[in-house]
């Protein structure tokens, strides 16, 4: 997987966290996994089609997800319900939209498939899987992970 793919998502997630939450991100160490498995309480997958094909999985711990929505709404949130998961899904949708715009600047034309939300850990996501790159992120309100599994479809 090329660094442009990773950087496009990294830049998008930085920009959206700054814009919507006023929160800075720190990159952790990249690692490779053989399967895309949900590692967190609240997970959102996005499909990518076009010049690149595959999926991207965002996994957030419960407390962080609740805090993200508290920052946006100003209202204390207690449980992971459809309000919370839908707000998270929309945010990931926005991040992925920005990532696709960033990718187009690198001459990759892609589209996103609307997000799917998966609550709970250890659920396998990928189909006939290729390896995925895991991009860990740290913030002042907790850490989360982005799994990226994309390959070029252009010959």
């Amino acid at each position, binding site marked *: 997987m090329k660094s442009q793919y990773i950087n496009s998502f990294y830049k998008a997630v930085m920009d*959206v966290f700054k*814009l*919507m939450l006023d929160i800075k991100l720190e990159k952790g160490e990249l690692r490779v996994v053989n399967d895309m498995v949900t590692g967190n309480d609240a997970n959102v997958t996005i499909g990518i089609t076009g010049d690149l094909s595959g999926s991207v999985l965002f996994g957030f711990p419960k407390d962080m997800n609740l805090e993200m*929505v508290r920052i*946006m*709404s*100003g*209202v204390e*949130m207690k449980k992971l*319900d*459809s*309000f*919370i*998961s*839908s*707000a*998270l*899904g*929309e*945010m990931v949708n*926005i991040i992925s939209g920005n990532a696709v715009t960033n990718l187009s600047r690198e001459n990759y034309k892609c589209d996103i498939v609307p997000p799917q939300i998966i609550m709970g850990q250890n659920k396998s996501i990928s189909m006939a899987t290729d390896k995925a790159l895991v991009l860990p992120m740290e913030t002042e309100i907790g850490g989360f992970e982005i799994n990226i599994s994309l390959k070029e479809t252009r010959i």
Partner: protein
Amino acid sequence: MWKEKYKIGVELIDGQHKELFRRVLDFIKTVQAEGPWESKLSEVKETMGFMKEYVIIHFSDEEVYQREIGYPDYGKHRQIHAKFKNEVQKYAERFQQEAYNEETVQEFGGKLMAWLINHVAGEDQKIGDYQNRGGSI
């Protein structure tokens, strides 16, 4: 929910944004409050009625303003509005079909909040920036 940084510096639009944020916040408080869903239904229906109308009025006013100042990204912005109006309409139809099912209303609330914050903090700021630069790109 409203933050000063969301202002774009145009009185009419900032006023409408504040009103939208205020109503979305009320909506969030209602749907997230303890208590039986049935007791919240009349307020949910009232808010949905408001949203459907107000989103259209606000988007239209904002588009008129963009044309007045010759905003170069008007076409793109209008498309973003149209897409979201369509989503609100689809939810309104689902609410009718599903008799205001709690899950669906909560889902709509979360999406509406996140969409609105991103749109006003991001795309709408560009209108104010353009105007502040004296209408140059």
